[in-house]
């Protein structure tokens, strides 16, 4: 899970979830609590789904 996904790709990461921002990759302090929670839950969910998905090459989830 990274914000600068090009760097992740350049070091060989295969399953990538793009995140929100560098100081708060898995979060967003500009949102209200409920919205931030939903966003975060969804992102981590996507990361888990990525781990359970067969891939051939670098893939963003």
């Amino acid at each position: 899970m990274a914000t600068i996904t090009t760097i992740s790709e350049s070091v060989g990461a295969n399953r990538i979830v793009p995140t929100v921002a560098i100081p708060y990759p898995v979060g967003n302090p500009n949102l209200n609590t409920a919205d931030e929670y939903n966003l975060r839950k969804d992102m981590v969910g996507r990361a888990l789904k990525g781990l359970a998905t067969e891939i051939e090459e670098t893939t963003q989830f």
Partner: protein
Amino acid sequence: MYKILYYVNQFFGQIGGEDKAGIEPEFHQKSIGPAMGFGVQVKGQAEVIGTLICGDNYFNENREAALEYIMNVIKEQKPDMVVAGPAFNAGRYGMACAGVTVAVQEQLGLPVLTGMYEENPGVDACKTKVYVVKTGNSAAAMKDALPVMGKLALKLLKGEEIGKPAEEGYLPQGRRLTVIADERGSKRAVDMLVARLYDKPFETELPMPVFDRVTPAAAIKDLSKATIALVTTGGIVPHGNPDRIQSASAQKWGKYDVSKIDELKGDYYTIHGGYDPVYANEKPDRVAPLDLLKEYEKEGVIGKVFEYFYTTTGTGTAVGNSIKFGTEIGKELKEAGVDGVILTST
């Protein structure tokens, strides 16, 4: 005639094998083991005035005491140079040779030389500071190693210019030195371009770092039975930073038991020097989402969150260290039977 002091371990010092690896350092005013063969290589110009012998285990477990003894002998004997090894692929012997040569060079300013197989862990401990002659991986390579070491030792003693690693037979030190080339830069550039245009071999003067491609791991078949670990390069650590992980250019990583907590908030904060810490300090789970992994665990989506959380800082950290951290952490997780990892970076 230059005077050389030689360092070997218990085995090459002809005291004994693994059972003698615990012996304390001792000094003999004669050439023993490889010191004899080395002496032949420098005959007429330098002589070995004595041999220091120390057990590999003793050196690595009592480093300070061992070095104190060794340094005292060197101060008394006043050699012009200290040579250690070659250690071939013997790891503890390599670490000892590295320890002795670096200490002698840094504290006494004497020229030093050792020899090792390139994969010996001792290489990384000293190659940027001292010359390490490249050897084969076992003592069978002794007869090839000693002439190279002898030749390089004489050059170092005389203060002669040391050529490129491949020419002199030492392992590259990773230092880029400025030298005067035979052709001016533009001529070298034109030659390089012409070589490229005619598909001939060429060598760049400034190699770019190479990044690895990795074959994707197979998918996790059943998430609900999987153990998932959380790892971050976002510098999230327990309050007080107990392991003193660096805020930039990290030299180490840490692991912390998170089996008893539901979120990082409260107990953790960021020491990362590469971003504005305000948002992460408010809620460290914004960087490493332990809270949500725990939720998914409770919901049964995943089997288990691994009991340890791994962390380091990514900013300014050398590629070499990053590879080392990744390998070490990966090994632990694999041995612990972890099925998948969420790695977050800032």
